[in-house]
């Protein structure tokens, strides 16, 4: 077996986590640099994966397979397809920015106890999450995936509950309670979803006698595995529920605003830009891959829920008074688009959904991190506490605006490509759904511009008069992300050509053909 590249990619941050955690309390800065170093190393490895991956090649590449828990029929099986590569890249790309953005978030308020090492813990947890997420993107064994899907909740939980937004200082009792409420809510929602999925996972094993995606798919293909319709549907529901909680899909979304509101901006990015993608990714790979018939059966309901998410999320975003909660609801709306694209079951829709995962990750990261810089400056998350920032901190305002424009998917920025693909893909299969979803672009403009207008424009508020503009560290976060947004908006080819083959595979899984245009005019 050749060099286990995927394992290495996942292992590096894990090692980094341990190393970071081991740094003595006094050497806080060293820990930060160490974490950053490891995340960059991971980025390099991810780049290698991206280059080694041949779009034309097998469905799953760089595969690894080792015995693990024979009694459970579980093998340590890794393999990456185009979708996996894209999201792997996204994760590896974003984490360094998250770390840099969070540079001072975890500095202890007072250094009274020498044993308490929040900073080390914080960055170690981030790396741990990265490791688990990466592994879950490349796991081709359902059980392995499930384990990571569940296990990554724990570090996330500590990140949310342990390192809240300094927007209200740590000592404030109500803030502490709110934060732990958010953390618990996050954990319980996802845990409940995961446990339901556990039942389905076990059921799948009872039915299929294996956890290996490849084996099951093969058995499906050569007809040696027959799933009763009802069984398949139940299993599908078990899986889908967990992913819908994670994604999150209306009405299982309410944990997200709390979590994102209470967590620090970088952690919020971790949640919505990276961890939640595991949910949508899993819908594409497991729900459609394992239960194509049931997926088709569920499509009408799922699409309806997705549409509700789109409109509902956007409307609630308009109604928010808290910057981070607003972005959270915006994300809910966007996840609606992603799920819509997945279940439209057209090439455009699914390619769009995959690109959407990546682009939404980057754009949200840009917007949310800049918002975080803003919030740390003023020490408040309330929109009402800002005004006229544009005058005192034009660069901050500019980056914020670009992030916002990306969020409303302005053409020329990456999200437009994916959103339009999703819309076209949906429209060609379900015109009405497509049109309803299109209304989302107006609402998106509404909440983004309202946010921008209330915070950045108008007369300068006293509280922000002395606000400094972005510092070098913060620019180092914002500018590259924006650059990526523009590049992928103008030239998404590198991504699409990786994704397309994977999408064709999924389409063949569900045995769907794209609807043919009525006039064959394309020459």
């Amino acid at each position, binding site marked *: 077996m050749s060099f286990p590249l995927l394992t290495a990619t996942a292992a590096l941050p894990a090692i980094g986590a341990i190393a970071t955690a081991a740094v003595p309390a006094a050497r806080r800065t060293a820990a930060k640099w160490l974490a950053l170093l490891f995340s960059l190393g991971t980025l390099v490895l991810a780049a290698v994966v991206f280059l080694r991956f041949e779009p034309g090649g097998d469905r799953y590449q760089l595969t690894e397979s080792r*015995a*693990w*828990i*024979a*009694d*459970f029929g579980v093998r340590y099986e890794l393999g990456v397809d185009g979708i996996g590569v894209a999201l792997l890249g996204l994760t590896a790309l974003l984490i360094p920015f998250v770390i840099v953005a969070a540079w001072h978030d975890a500095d202890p308020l007072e250094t009274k*106890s020498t*044993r*308490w*090492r929040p900073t080390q813990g914080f960055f170690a947890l981030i790396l741990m999450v990265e490791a688990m997420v990466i592994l879950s993107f490349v796991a081709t064994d359902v059980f392995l995936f*499930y*384990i*990571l899907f*569940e*296990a990554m*909740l*724990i570090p996330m*939980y*500590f990140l949310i*509950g*342990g390192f809240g937004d300094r927007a209200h200082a740590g*000592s404030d*009792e109500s803030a*502490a309670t709110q*934060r*732990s409420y958010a*953390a*618990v809510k996050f*954990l*319980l929602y996802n*845990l*409940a979803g995961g*446990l*339901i999925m*556990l*039942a389905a996972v*076990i*059921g799948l*094993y*009872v039915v299929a006698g294996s956890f290996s995606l490849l084996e099951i798919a093969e058995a499906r293909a050569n007809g040696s595995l027959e799933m009763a319709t009802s069984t398949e549907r139940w299993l599908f529901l078990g899986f889908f529920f967990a992913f819908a909680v994670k994604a999150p899909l209306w009405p299982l979304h309410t944990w997200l605003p709390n979590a994102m509101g209470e967590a620090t901006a970088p952690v919020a990015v971790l949640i919505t830009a990276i961890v939640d993608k595991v949910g949508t990714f899993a819908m594409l790979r497991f729900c459609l891959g394992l239960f194509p018939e049931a997926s088709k059966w569920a499509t009408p309901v799922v699409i309806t829920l997705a549409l509700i998410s789109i409109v509902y999320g956007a409307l609630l975003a308009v109604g928010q008074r808290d910057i981070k909660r607003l972005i959270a609801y915006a994300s809910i709306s966007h996840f609606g688009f992603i799920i819509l694209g997945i279940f439209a079951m057209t090439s455009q829709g699914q390619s769009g959904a995959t690109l959407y995962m990546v682009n939404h990750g980057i754009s949200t990261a840009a917007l949310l991190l800049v918002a975080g810089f803003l919030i740390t400056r003023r020490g408040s998350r309330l929109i009402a506490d800002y005004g006229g920032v544009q005058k005192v901190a034009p660069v901050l305002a500019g980056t914020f605006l670009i992030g916002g424009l990306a969020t409303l998917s302005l053409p020329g920025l990456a999200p437009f490509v994916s959103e339009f693909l999703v819309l076209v893909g949906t429209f060609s299969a379900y015109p009405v759904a497509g049109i309803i979803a299109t209304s989302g672009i107006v609402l998106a403009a509404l909440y983004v511009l309202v946010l921008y207008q209330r915070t950045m424009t108008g007369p300068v508020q006293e509280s922000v008069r002395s606000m400094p503009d972005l510092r070098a560290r913060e620019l180092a976060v914002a500018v590259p992300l924006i650059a990526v947004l523009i590049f992928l908006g103008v030239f998404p080819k590198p991504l699409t050509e990786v994704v397309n083959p994977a999408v064709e595979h999924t389409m063949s899984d569900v045995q769907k053909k794209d609807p043919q245009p009525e006039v064959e005019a394309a020459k």
Partner: protein
Amino acid sequence: MSATAVHSLWTTASGVTAAAPGDSFTAPKIEYTQLMPVLIIVVAAVLGILVEAFVPRRARYHTQLFLTVVAVAASFAAIVGLAAGGYGTTKAQIAAMGAIAIDGPTLFLQGTILLVAMVAVFTFAERRLDPSSDGNRVDSFAAQPGAVPGGEGEKAAIRAGFTTTEVFPLLLFSVAGLLVFPAANDLLTLFIALEVFSLPLYLLCAVARRKRLMSQEAAVKYFLLGAFSSAFLLFGIALIYGYAGSLSYAAIANVVDGSVLEIDPALADTMGNDALLLIGGAMILTGLLFKVGAVPFHMWTPDVYQGAPTPVTGFMAAATKVAAFGALLRLLYVALPGLTWDLRPVMWAVAIVTMLGGAIVAITQTDIKRLLAYSSIAHAGFILAGVIAANPEGISSVLFYLLAYSFVTVGAFAVVTLVRDAGGEATHLSKWAGLGRRSPLVAAVFAVFLLAFAGIPLTSGFSGKFAVFKAAAEGGAGALVVVGVLSSAVAAFFYIRVIVLMFFSEPKADGPTVAVPSPLTMTTIAVGVAVTLVLGLAPQYFLDLASQAGVFVR
């Protein structure tokens, strides 16, 4: 006189004597090698009594500790030897004239019990946690259990530096009983073993150094209810005996599945009378379900767990569950396989109410020991799901679960002993607030145990739960699995609550201090963590072990 007397260790001679008086006495055949683990423990226990009698007080503690550790280690070595000798698999056999079964489950469970006992001994022997009184290092046990708490007698005893080193022989006796319990192959042995491990435990519950009143109350409750339940068990035994005319599992099984055809007309209304069988079976079941702490026979658990000295609680919680489930499995699979379909509905009901009841009531608990007690109830429910599976996977999964669960439990209670304030252990949850800030390591360790209890992946708890649920699903108990995951979701809530308390809430000013334990307790906790993680990350070896061991000899 009929010749239906089935040979049994206790009654070999019976038929013969009746036939020909004055005939030569035939000695029963005892396989001492196979029984060695038990014998070692018993001998050591007796020696322990002698030590109490003849060794000067100052030396007793160390002598007893040494003796106990050596005995347990030796016994475990014997187990390993037997297992290596293939007694667990190929050479599995009925020993001691049908009284004891030496087979996979026996050896696996006995091994588990001994390991648990070993780490438990360490916590028993811990003497660094409490501030030394009058220059004497003290452990968790009363100087003179007989004396009135806070009375003159006790003060004098403390001044004199008395310590209750009897706990070690008591522990050993209890262990002896526990070792026999899952191996018992006839009902009498079952009953005796039950009493042998119960009685010392009743006593051990009563001898806490701090909070004596609660400790004694726990002992009384445990004793009365235990005796009550054993009465049920015994009556059940009587009825089954009446039904089958024998105590040996094998014989009972034969009668149940009707392979014994010739029935003396005189016995028509007892022999093979299903009413007797069913009632008797049900009553024995009751007795065993009491020991495993299944709803509705669970109510002793919280009080006893809370009142007993924490090291005892840890030992009891882990070891008795292991032994009791072992005995339950053997009874159901060897003696009453014919009743599977009659008992199934009841077992289902019990499993469901146990899972849900334990999880739900735990939510509102405010005392960490009671919390763990309720969680142990919920876990009993999960294990029952595996028992119900009624297939080989069921057996092995239960064995594995018991292994995983017992170490988490011992470890968790060991951690509980560390968190102390003026009044001894600070078991009220409110006192645990902000523990993560004050001593991150202990809090982290406890968090690991809690996550294992909650069944989060990468911990032993998950592997066990998965194994059990998988077996249950394959055994056609899918509904149980669903209930199981639901109650796990509920259970997760209160484990998480404790973690929140430890890490996310501000430390209280008058909060407890975390005592720095001696290497003994450290070992216990370390072993607990190690097993938890190993069984979570790479359980394969132990799963193999369990599945090899998962066959009962008949």
